[in-house]
């Protein structure tokens, strides 16, 4: 990381610390949702943006994390232990689901994950004795951290912020390690990567399982945040929403999913004054963005920067030759 980047990160963090001060409950709550979904989208970005695999089960993995945490904390287990189990469960489920699914990859993986998400929804709805069925689970306590309660929305926001920073730090560590380089290589040219000794199936599986674990972590946070969970919160539509966050923000960019989550969560609030037209405007904006900048908002930012301050021009003329 350069000094400039460190400065920007410090400023960003200071902004996030200062942002909720003096805001109403609803805004603080919405910002907390943004933090939670950012963690989940960060995980999906690893699967999609770095390893190049489409997963439609990210909300499902959030559901796994949320229900595990809910059941454990309701049974009196401390949140931190429940969160640890949630993350591990999602990781292992990711491995189990990905192992057969990644033999086929790409759109087949999309179908397998779609089926998983649907199946999970049915299990959560039908296993009433454990999950409470359609009524869901209520009354999960908010965690105490070092004796400090997080019952107010503001204190829970700061708790979520700490979790967010930890998650981002872990992701940053992974991406700067040789694993991160291997994930990028998988996306750009898997055949070449394999010829250089990279075991592509294992590495892709790891990306998928780690991405799923981030989903589980986000779910573990969502449980004490909302204090009410039910199957519809983790239905397929939410997996698509997470996919949208990653793509709109800029898949394959570190800050892409955070920006995307902000847009997807905040834009409906901003567009509320348009009433019935909101969805039409929203859809049009997304289509326009995808047409003009497949790299999402961060990709669009890079395009503008390159136009204002041209550096080396990418050899677009040769792009066809890169793939075998």
């Amino acid at each position, binding site marked *: 990381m350069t000094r400039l980047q460190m400065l920007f990160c410090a400023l960003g963090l200071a902004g996030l610390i200062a942002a909720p001060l003096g805001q109403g409950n609803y805004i603080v709550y919405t910002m907390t949702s943004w933090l939670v979904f950012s963690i989940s989208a960060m995980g999906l970005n690893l699967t999609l943006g770095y390893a190049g695999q489409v997963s439609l089960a990210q909300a499902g993995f959030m559901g796994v994390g949320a229900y595990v945490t809910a059941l454990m904390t309701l049974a009196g287990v401390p949140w931190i232990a429940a969160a640890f189990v949630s993350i591990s469960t999602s990781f292992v489920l990711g491995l189990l689901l990905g192992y057969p699914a990644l033999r086929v990859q790409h759109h087949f993986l999309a179908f397998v994950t779609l089926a998983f998400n649907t199946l999970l929804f049915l299990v959560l709805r039908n296993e009433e004795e454990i999950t409470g069925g359609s009524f869901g689970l209520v009354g999960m306590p908010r965690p105490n951290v070092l004796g400090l309660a997080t019952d107010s929305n503001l204190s829970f926001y700061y708790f979520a912020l700490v979790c967010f920073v930890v998650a981002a730090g872990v992701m940053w560590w*992974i991406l700067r*390690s040789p694993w991160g*380089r291997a994930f990028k*290589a998988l996306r750009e040219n898997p055949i070449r990567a394999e*010829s250089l*000794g*990279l075991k592509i199936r294992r590495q892709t599986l790891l990306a998928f399982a780690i991405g799923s674990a981030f989903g589980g972590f986000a779910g573990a946070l969502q449980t004490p945040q909302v204090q009410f969970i039910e199957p519809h919160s983790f239905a397929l539509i939410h997996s698509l929403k997470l996919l949208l966050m990653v793509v709109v923000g800029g898949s394959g960019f570190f800050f892409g999913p955070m920006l995307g989550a902000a847009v997807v969560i905040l834009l409906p609030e901003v567009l509320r004054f348009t009433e019935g037209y909101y969805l039409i405007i929203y859809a049009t904006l997304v289509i326009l963005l995808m047409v003009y900048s497949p790299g999402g908002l961060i990709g669009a930012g890079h395009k503008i920067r390159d136009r204002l301050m041209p550096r080396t021009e990418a050899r677009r003329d040769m792009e066809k030759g890169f*793939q075998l």
Partner: protein
Amino acid sequence: MTAPIPSAPVLSVRAMSKQFGGIRAVNNVSFDVHKGEILGLIGPNGSGKSTLFNCILGQLRPTSGHCEIAGRSTDGVRPADLSLMGVGRTFQQLSVFPRMTVLDNVILAGQEHEGTILTRLFGRPDAGLTDKAKQLIEFFRLTPYLQTEAGALSYGQQKLVDAAMAFMAGPQIVLLDEPAGGVNLTMLAHLKERLVTYNREHGTTFVVIEHNMEFVMSLCTRIIVLAQGEIIAEGRPEDIRANPLVIDAYLGG
């Protein structure tokens, strides 16, 4: 160039055949490549060179026959494990990672050969390979482009990056698939000179598929000519050049 001293073969291909439907693309081909040799595989289009290459490299499963690298069978070995056995390769098409820097491209080419999967997560971000990668980049005179995204380089420069990647893990043998294709003359002379120097300094064995006769004749120590899936001639470049069968295969096609 002096003739190599015969020793145990680095690559040994035995009775290899590959059939696609009714077509025998490779028919009962056997040959050995010894340490330090630069073997050229030539032949007209459709003679089976690329199919043979792909069978050796585990991209295709041969119909019959097998292949050994330094005495170890490669039957059913995946390309990744072949790389770990000491086989490097370049591709006919451009095969760099366009959105990664030249340095990252070359480090990636070596990192899977270092440590374990866990040390690659918790250890140094460059797997301790930055110096080695820089040396190799310097060897191919690419140092000015160290931090440039590989996709922004010219075609010839990308071919050099591809070659550097093939050498990064210190392979016993490198298979080069049309290294001269689409490369201009100045860059070609540079590439050839670097390959010969690398061969001399490290004793690495090369097998080269190539259409550019001038390039093959001046680079290789021995040449095998394929036509319609079979070996029709084998020998030193000057003998191959004068062989009527070879002239016939190329001109009489």
